[in-house]
């Protein structure tokens, strides 16, 4: 039984000849893990997502997905195991209606026509979009469109779900909806590996592991509690830290000694 979902070893990549985004990047993700990748704009996070689904090819090194080295021959079969949700809700809505959009992936996977209706209903229900099946994208909010995109990927039954800044163009309500959905998916299927590329520090707090990328290199790679305590390093790569961590630091700097790094813990300490 393979227990690594992704093994990236020593890859080099750039879109053009004289551009290098990754010079020597290695990291891996375990099966069933929920990993958040953070980094500022232009740090190479989204490129990483594209490499993982084989939309671009690495120059050197290799990417293993569930133990198989990604190459041109197995790309279509490997993609069946990977679902990816991109940033722009409009540009990834392929079908003319919610129904057709969820069906698109099923058509590609050659699911039998008779089985499609049931699958579409099942996944539309999962993302709470069942009432909107016949709606067109123009009549949906950004959050709803992203939920449809998630349903479309989930319908293919992936073992690995990649979210490439899927919430960055959404309003707070949309962000919340997607976050709740991700949590639900994790609880439902412990074997589902989720990689979320994000700016949302609050989301990163809930992850099993946070990977900080800067200029194509892994800067930090640890549990959120450990990563967010490393204020200096995060500041260096221009990243924010969650509210309670920051409050803890500012309080300590002002000679109010506290230990907690969570909201309620801080309330308790301050009110002693």
């Amino acid at each position, binding site marked *: 039984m393979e227990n690594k979902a992704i093994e990236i070893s020593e890859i080099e990549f750039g879109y053009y000849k004289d551009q290098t985004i990754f010079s020597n990047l290695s990291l891996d993700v375990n099966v069933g893990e929920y990993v958040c990748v953070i980094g*500022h*704009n*232009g740090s190479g996070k989204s490129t990483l997502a594209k490499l993982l689904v084989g939309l671009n090819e690495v120059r050197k090194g290799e990417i293993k997905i569930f133990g198989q080295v990604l190459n041109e021959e197995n790309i279509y079969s490997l993609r069946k195991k990977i679902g990816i949700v991109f*940033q722009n809700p409009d540009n990834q809505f392929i079908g003319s209606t919610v129904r057709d959009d969820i069906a698109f992936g099923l058509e590609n996977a050659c699911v039998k026509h008779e089985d499609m209706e049931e699958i579409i209903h099942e996944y539309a229900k999962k993302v709470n979009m069942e009432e909107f099946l016949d709606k067109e994208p123009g009549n949906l*909010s*950004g959050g709803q469109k992203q939920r449809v995109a998630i349903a479309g990927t989930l319908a293919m039954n992936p073992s690995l779900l990649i979210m490439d800044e899927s919430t*960055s*163009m959404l*309003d*707070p*309500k*949309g962000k919340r909806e997607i976050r709740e959905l991700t949590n639900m998916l994790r609880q439902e299927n412990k074997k589902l590996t989720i990689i979320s590329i994000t*700016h949302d*520090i609050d989301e990163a707090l809930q992850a099993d592991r946070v990977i900080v990328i800067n200029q194509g290199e892994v800067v930090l790679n640890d549990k959120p509690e450990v990563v967010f305590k490393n204020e200096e390093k995060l500041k260096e790569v*221009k*990243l*924010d830290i969650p*509210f*309670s961590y*920051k*409050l803890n630091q*500012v*309080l300590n700097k*002002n000679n*109010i000694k506290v230990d907690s790094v969570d*909201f309620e813990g*801080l*309330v308790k300490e*301050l*009110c002693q």
Partner: protein
Amino acid sequence: MPVVFSHLNYIYSIKTPMEFSALKDINLQIEDNSFTMIVGHTGSGKSTLVQQINALLIPTSGIVDVNGIVVDCNVKKLKNIKELRKGVGLVFQFPEYQLFEETVLKDVSFGPKNFGVDNKKATELAKEALNLVGIDESLFDKSPFELSGGQKRRVAIAGVITLKPKVLILDEPTAGLDPQGSREMMKLFTKIKEQGTTIIMITHDMDNVIRYGTDVVVLAKGELIKKCRPYELFLDQDSFNSLSIDEPLVIKMAKRLNQNGYHISLENVIDIDSLVQEIKKEKRYE
């Protein structure tokens, strides 16, 4: 001069089956040199409201008065529309999509030229605006399409502020930026405000509302719900809950502490540093 809406209604696709009432009887005054935040759910009418200010949309009934220029439904062809737009800059969401010229400098000077400023003066104004938004001189002659996402947005904003509008409207200017970029952007707007510009900003980010806003306007389903100082939004828990707005964590923390014997005045809490200062003021730390 402030921006005044009175009895303003706006209906989309009027007299068609798709008729939709986007703004209902809006009475509102936006103070001169304020930093007014407009909040509300998607579809609450925020964008429709700000587009009335520079006559991109003409009210179905009621009036908008901007710097003495009155726009109402009777105005078929507004003669002073150019004058109005010269004084009101509007930065749309994802403004980087409006760039089109060959060079950064040309794109930014496009606005002034449209308003009849001569070439030389327009270039001067453009350079000034680019400096203000922090675009390095080495980029002036580059194609705007070669820049990074954050830089593109700065250039697009420069393209609107070149004319030094008295009122600057921003529709979610920080959307899609990383935290650092978004902070820098907000600093830029404060700087512009300090030069005497009135800033009207649509946002979902309540942290920015309390940190930078002087006033906040809440819209829901096309109706004006509230206009107040930002902290006042959070005073009354019940009415606040009904608006379903996210409470900034600093406010939430201050409230929790107050429940446990603190006496923090919410008015003074605008970010983590000010919260800590307020905590320090408490007797137990003196």
